[in-house]
């Protein structure tokens, strides 16, 4: 039964990839949606069966076939559902289904064959992600791990005729490859150390070990695996691909950011919680990187002008939170945030897609505004998403984010907690900046900034030269069609209620989510702090105040006094430009890594090693053969007697050797 979960989307992919160009849009969309919804239903049934089992025995395993059998090393293609992967398959297929449905409307202007191509990729993406979360050992996981990398490349570069889109696809793929390299090394080292790649066996073996106090094999393994996670989940230093991934169609961004792909790294750490918790050194690295990423991305998100880019940086930032949770040993909280984040981030992306759709491709926040009345469904659902991500009490984001901050504080990581809180403030500010710029105020003719002449489609970074503004050409602003509106509404409801499965003790809940996940983290050292309910209550009030404060700041700067925001930007012009240019990370990478590699490859490897050494050797061999042949052919005189003489001489020499040796 488990096999059906990834197989159904895969079949959908096969159908759309093989016959897609002959199918109508309605048929192609129906096949894809049916495949993913079917997968969702099977997942739900599997989770239902799982929930009926005893908490300790909660795992359904299906061994599909023996994949590799070499000597005493065997790897089976085994799928396994336990509470952790149960959460993941529900998120992937559930959110994935909504995104599929939404896409049928969003992508409707594509031609038939492009439409089918899009849906075949979308299905393939879901299939690989499901393999990733269902795999019961590293190798099966790796199949999915590479598969989602491939699909992200295909989907980000979906509009491949656009240079920036195909570049962004390549960037995503290459950056991911760097991470994957670390991951592969980590897996190899796991095999060397444990002699197996099965998650359960590894967890059992590690559980018996004492946590490493100094840097040892476990630390190295987990660090390498974490390198892989930074690639997939867009953490420092490999986060640069995610904002560029905005070149893909908006529902793809939603899929990548919410349901699939970026959650892979977090999931992988959760899956190997036992391993990671026995390497405290790595955990510290994870927590610090996560926090740094959260802060960095949050500050960048504050000033970006492309609606999707703001959301992209908010994803990076929220992923930082998840890694912070993993790093402080609060694995369940990290997965909890992953799960709530899937709802509101999918909602926000699909909402921004609805805005872009309504404005005929406009993505620049400075050209939006006043959409509140024209797009009521989009506005209200988007607002709910923004409230949820900002951490306003009683919405899903509040519970999960609060739990992470609580565990961070309770674990004694005060500095990380302060930065986390600061990021939470930034989150509230940039999200509500987005809401106010896009939906409130006056459209385009807004006074706070005089947008320069922006060519459509260019996300003009940098300063805006005052100039004439082409009159907005959004003639027919229309709200989302039903296929887009319903997913938004469902996700909005999810964003409100999803958090209640993890209601903490202090609010009268039982933290059911964490207890449900517990069997998956067997063998891990879990941050235990449930008795500090009073502390949790206090921290909750603090973070609520921070969230409200952030919204208040956004109200002041971006709703009431937009000129004040400009004044601040002008006052700290250097800082503003630094943030707008994303800390020049791309430029730094280009200067320190890309260009040196290019120069070494071109001037050294190509012009010296390849041309001189490799080609030179080959040519030398040719020349030696040719030259010696030139000389040797002189013995071919054509004189029969000379041949006979040499024959005779040879015989005499050989006989002489045997006679007188």
């Amino acid at each position, binding site marked *: 039964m488990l096999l059906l979960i990834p197989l159904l989307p895969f079949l959908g992919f096969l159908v759309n990839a093989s016959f897609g160009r002959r199918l109508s849009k309605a048929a192609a969309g129906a096949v894809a949606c049916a495949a993913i919804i079917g997968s969702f239903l099977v997942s739900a049934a599997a989770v239902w069966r799982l929930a009926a089992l005893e908490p300790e025995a909660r795992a359904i395993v299906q061994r599909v076939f023996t994949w590799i059998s070499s000597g005493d090393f065997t790897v089976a293609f085994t799928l396994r559902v336990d509470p952790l992967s149960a959460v993941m398959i529900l998120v992937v297929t559930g959110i994935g289904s909504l995104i599929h449905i939404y896409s049928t409307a969003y992508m409707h202007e594509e031609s038939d064959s492009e439409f089918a191509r899009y849906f075949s990729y979308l299905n393939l993406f879901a299939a690989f992600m499901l393999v990733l979360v269902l795999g019961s050992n590293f190798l099966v996981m790796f199949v999915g791990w590479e598969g989602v990398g491939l699909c992200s490349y295909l989907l980000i570069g979906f509009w491949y005729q656009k240079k920036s889109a195909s570049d962004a696809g390549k960037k995503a793929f290459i950056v991911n490859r760097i991470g994957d390299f670390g991951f592969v090394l980590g897996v190899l080292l796991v095999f060397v150390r444990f002699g197996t790649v099965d998650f359960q066996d590894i967890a059992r073996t590690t559980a018996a070990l004492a946590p490493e106090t100094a840097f040892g094999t476990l630390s190295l393994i987990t660090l390498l695996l974490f390198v892989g996670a930074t690639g997939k989940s867009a953490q420092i230093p490999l986060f640069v691909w995610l904002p560029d991934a905005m070149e893909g169609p908006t529902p793809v961004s939603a899929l990548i950011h919410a349901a699939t792909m970026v959650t892979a790294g977090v999931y992988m750490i959760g899956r190997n919680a036992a391993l990671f918790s026995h390497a405290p050194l790595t955990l510290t690295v994870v927590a610090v990187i996560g926090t740094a990423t959260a802060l960095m991305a949050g500050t960048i998100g504050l000033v970006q002008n492309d609606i999707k880019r703001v959301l992209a940086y908010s994803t990076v930032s929220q992923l930082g939170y998840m890694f912070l949770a993993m790093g402080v040993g609060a694995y369940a909280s990290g997965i909890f945030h992953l799960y709530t984040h899937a709802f509101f981030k999918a909602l926000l992306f699909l909402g921004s897609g609805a805005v872009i759709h309504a404005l005929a491709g406009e993505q620049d926040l400075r050209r939006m505004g006043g959409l509140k009345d024209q797009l009521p469904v989009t506005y209200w659902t988007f607002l709910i998403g923004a409230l949820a991500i900002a951490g306003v009490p009683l919405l899903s984001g509040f519970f999960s984010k609060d739990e992470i901050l609580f565990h961070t504080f309770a674990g004694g990581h005060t500095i990380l907690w302060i930065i986390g809180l600061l990021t939470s403030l930034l989150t509230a500010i940039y999200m509500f900046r987005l809401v106010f710029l896009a939906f409130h105020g006056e459209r385009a003719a807004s006074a706070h900034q005089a947008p320069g002449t922006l060519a459509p489609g260019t996300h003009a970074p940098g300063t805006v030269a005052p100039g004439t503004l082409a009159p907005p050409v959004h003639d027919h602003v229309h709200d989302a069609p039903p296929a887009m509106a319903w997913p938004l509404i469902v996700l909005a409801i999810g964003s409100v209620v999803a958090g209640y499965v993890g209601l903490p003790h202090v609010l009268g809940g039982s933290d059911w989510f964490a207890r449900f996940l517990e069997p998956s983290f067997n063998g891990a050292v879990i941050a235990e702090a449930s008795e500090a309910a009073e502390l949790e209550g206090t921290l909750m009030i603090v973070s609520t105040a921070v969230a409200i404060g952030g919204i208040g700041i956004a109200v002041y700067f971006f709703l009431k006094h937009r000129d004040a925001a400009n004044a601040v930007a002008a006052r700290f012009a250097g800082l503003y430009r630094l943030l707008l240019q994303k800390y020049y990370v791309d430029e730094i990478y280009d200067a320190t890594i890309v260009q040196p590699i290019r120069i070494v490859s071109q001037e050294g490897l190509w012009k010296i090693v390849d041309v001189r050494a490799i080609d030179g050797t080959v040519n030398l061999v040719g020349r030696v053969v040719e030259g010696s042949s030139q000389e040797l052919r002189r013995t071919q*005189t*054509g*004189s*029969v*007697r000379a041949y006979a*003489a040499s024959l*005779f001489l040879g015989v005499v020499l050989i006989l002489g050797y045997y006679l007188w040796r």
Partner: protein
Amino acid sequence: MPTLGDYLLLSAILFAIGTAGVFVRRNLITILLSIEIMLNAVNLTFVAFGRALGSADGQIIVFFVMTVAAAEAAVGLAIVIALFRHKESLNPDSFTMLKW
């Protein structure tokens, strides 16, 4: 009664004469004759060993050699005639077209 050594010595002398003939003579037909002498020198060795060892094998092989020699002489002479028609010469040094 000549001993085996005598036969072998005679055979060696004959073989040397044949070999020298192949190298020094400038006439293809003489060269062919010299080759026949070498073959017969070998035949003599076979027969001598056959007798000394009391076995018929040596004599049987000689029959094979003589048969092959007859065939070889026929083919060789045919080639010589063809060559002569081509170049009006029997000197092997004038047939050096098959060189670099």
